[in-house]
């Protein structure tokens, strides 16, 4: 096994663990942050798998926009509940 294989192994195991945490987390905001971390790690996985196009899209959409939109949805839900 070369170095890149070891990196891929570590990234894959981390992806599985973070995905499990994102599903099982009770607090929604923490779940969203885990989802963002999952996207960030999958960017690394995509680059290793030689798919830079997918990695670029995932970096912008997965860890940037979707996280921001989820956080703002949670904020407005909280505001509605406080009323």
């Amino acid at each position, binding site marked *: 096994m070369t170095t890149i294989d070891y990196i891929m192994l570590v990234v894959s195991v981390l992806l599985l663990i973070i995905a499990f945490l994102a599903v099982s987390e009770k607090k929604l905001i923490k779940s969203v942050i885990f989802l963002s971390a999952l996207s960030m790690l999958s960017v690394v996985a995509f680059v290793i798998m030689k798919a830079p*196009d997918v990695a670029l899209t995932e970096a912008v*959409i997965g860890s940037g926009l979707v996280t921001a*939109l989820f956080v703002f949805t949670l904020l407005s839900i909280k505001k509605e509940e406080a009323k």
Partner: protein
Amino acid sequence: MKKLLAFALTIGLGVLIIFALDANTSFDDFGYADLSERVSSRYITKDSTADIIFGVTQDPESGAANIVTSIVVDYRSFDTLGEVTVLFISALGVSLLLGSAVTQKRLSLDFKPNFMLRVASRALFGIIIMTGVYIILHGHLTPGGGFPGGTMIASAMLLLYLADDQFRAKIKSFKILEGVAGSLYVVIGLVGLVLGTYFLQNFLPNGTVGDLLSSGIIPIVYILIGLKVGSEISGVIDNFLTEEVEQ
């Protein structure tokens, strides 16, 4: 207990998938697939017997140096039109649900952005926009293209929205830009149909592989897709960060 059950179920599904795909005769082992039977080899060789050399080859079948782009916006451009339509319909759904009120104001947040943050975000805004435009313009040469570039432009708008709690973009002009860009994509396809033989045909000369002005209609289509995606997602962000004015 519930978590343990879910974990066991996931492991079981993973093992099932691995066993189903291992030694399956419908999937060849690495290196044993007959590529000459597959359409993917055509996308790479671009229907020429000679090698495609960056900066040298003149007028190949598809002029993009990035193979992914030559598939996405040349060989399979009709699928991309469908993809753009899917994004349009989801943006339409968001604006029907969240943006239908006549009078709207910014979502009031608990924190107040300070002066430093506002100035720094204005400075960063230009850099992010430039990166997005670069990625769109070089879509046929380097990884990236209309979708990531447009989303980058939209995330620059998101930065402005986050850093200034009074800021609202001129959302009406975004809607017009989006409609114009989307219809121009279809018009370019129809021009290909009239001048050539099929919808979305590349009717401009391809030029040298690797030049900025090459590969026919691909840069034009990518600029249109970038404008459309950028304005669409900016509209979605605006819908998320505004609320109805209570009467």
